[in-house]
Structure formats: C-alpha cells, structure tokens
C-alpha cells in the first residue's frame, strides 16, 4: 500500500462528499470514473496534500502512463512526494 494512502483516501472522500457525489468509504481499487473523481478534483487533492505535508508535489518525478483508479492516484502522490 502506498505511503500516503490513508490520507489520500480521506481527502478524496472529503472532496467528493462536498459535491454530494459520494458518501460511502472510497475503495482503493475503485475506478475514478465510477466515483466521479475528475481532473478538477485531482487538482484540489494535490493542493490539499501540499498543504498537509508542507511539501510541493513534483509532477516531473512521476512516470505513470495513466491514472485510472484510486490506487493510481495514491501511487502518483507518493511518487510526487518522493525526494
């Protein structure tokens, strides 16, 4: 499991709940499409993660071909937070 998974899952739930999209627990294997998590939500998640961790995400450090699932998001954030 990625290092920041718990935090990321919590933030995804907060972001989606605020839009009235999702009230259950977010499953790690869920597809982003199925839970209605979009690029705009991802942008918000990144800024919240940066605020939480006090560190800037480095997008260029991430080598992932595409993001389809919640798990991919967690992996992305982990890689982007690596030194």
């Amino acid at each position, binding site marked *: 499991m990625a290092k920041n998974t718990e935090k990321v899952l919590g933030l995804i739930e907060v972001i989606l709940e605020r839009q009235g999209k999702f009230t259950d627990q977010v499953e790690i294997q869920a597809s982003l499409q199925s839970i209605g998590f979009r*690029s*705009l939500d991802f*942008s*918000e998640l990144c800024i*919240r993660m940066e*605020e939480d961790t006090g560190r800037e995400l480095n997008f260029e450090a991430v080598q992932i*071909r*595409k*993001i*389809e699932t919640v798990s991919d998001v967690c992996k992305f954030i982990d890689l982007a937070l690596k030194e």
Partner: protein
Amino acid sequence: MKNQIAKTATISPQAQIGKGVKIGNFTIVHDNAIVADGVTIEDYCTIGYPVDFDLPNRKLMIGKNSHIRSHSVIYEGCDFSGCIQTGHHVMVRENTIAGRLFSVGSYNDIEGDCTFGDCVRLHGYVHVGKGSKIGSFVWLYSLVTLTNDPLPPLTLDVPVILEDGVVVCLGSTVMPGAVMRKGSYAAANCQVKGEIEMGAVVKGPEAEQVGHVSTLIDFKSMKCLPWMKHALERYPEDEHSRLLKLSDEITASRINFSKDKKL
C-alpha cells in the same frame, strides 16, 4: 496579385483596398476601411460599419491575410492590423483593438471599446462585453459571456480584465469587474467574480478556488497544465519563448498559492 471583387459587392471609393484581396457577393466596404494585401472577405459582410458618434479614430484596419467569413459585421474604429480570422456571423463593435493573429469563432458578439492582446482565440458564441480588457494567449470557449454591468440597465460599465494565458471554459460567465490574473482557469459553467489569483482553477457558481493549473492533469494522456508547453506548434515560432516564459511564471506561482490559500 489581382483582386477578385464580386460584382454585387459595394466598395466605397474612399476605402483602401490592397493587392490580392477577395471580396464576396453583397459585401459592403465603407469609407474608413483599410484592407491590406491578401485579405479575404466572404459574402454578405459589412466592413467599416459607420457609427453616428465621435470616435478617437474612425479607421478600420484589416491586416494582411485576414479572413472574414460570411455575414460578419465589423464597425469602424477597430484595429486588426495584426491579422484577424473570423467564423461566420461575427459582430465586432467600434473601437476594438487586437494584437496579432486574432481568432474569432462563429456567432461571436464583441461589444465596443475592447482590447485584446496577441494570439487570442475565441470559440463560437462568445459574448465580449463593452470595454473588456483581454491579454495575450487567452482562450475563451463556446458560450462564454464577459459581462460589464453589475446592475442592468444602469449601464454602469464595469468591464472585466483577463490577463495573459487565461482559459475560460464552456458556458462560463465572467461577472462585471472580475479580474482573472495570468494563467487562471475557469472550469465549465463557472460564474467568475472578484479577483482570481494567478494560476488558480475556479469552478461552480461561486467561482470556488479549487486548485492550481499546474496540478490539472489529463488522466489518459498525463498531459499537465499550464497548456502553453503542449501547444507551441499552434503558435508562430517567434512567440514560443514568450509562451514558455509565461508557462514558467504561472507554474512558479503555485508555491505562493499552496502556502497562502486556504481551500
């Protein structure tokens, strides 16, 4: 280069027409129009439409190789000497000035006294309120409305300002007096109001500031904004360094955004 003027077109003898100009059927070119070389004006257009009030300058400049598509009306007192391309049924009111390579989609309505920087692109059905000030490399998508009156019909004239590299997506409305700083991004159907900080992403009826453009990513292609670095081929080579500098400036603004902005 020989001109091709349709027999049914009406060209004022005072209008200045360059070389290699094509003018379509039933188009009218009024006195103050200056049409440069290589311009195409399609059927049923009105170029240099006169107004009955004072203007700082009555000349209408249509720059080299511009293309005005059918049923478009451009008023006098406008300067498009840096080249304009329009779709069909475009209306541009007086005293509007644009930089180079101005692209205006079909059914646009640009009210008077507007200024546009270089390489601005408007998709179809955009309404630009009177006095709007728009920077360079701005994208306005279909059905975007830039307003200018906070309490109609009082005609209070509080136009909007959109700085360089701003993107306003489909169906959004920019409210009177709103200022969108460099590279800021309004998602579809947003109602933009107040001041939007550099690189901010806003959405919804309250223009909620949800993120920063440098964290906007397409999940399939993994392309990330700012958009400039992915779109260089769409712009002339001599604009590339300006675009990359703008992109860097917008990306750098994330540091302040992350630290200072409470979401």
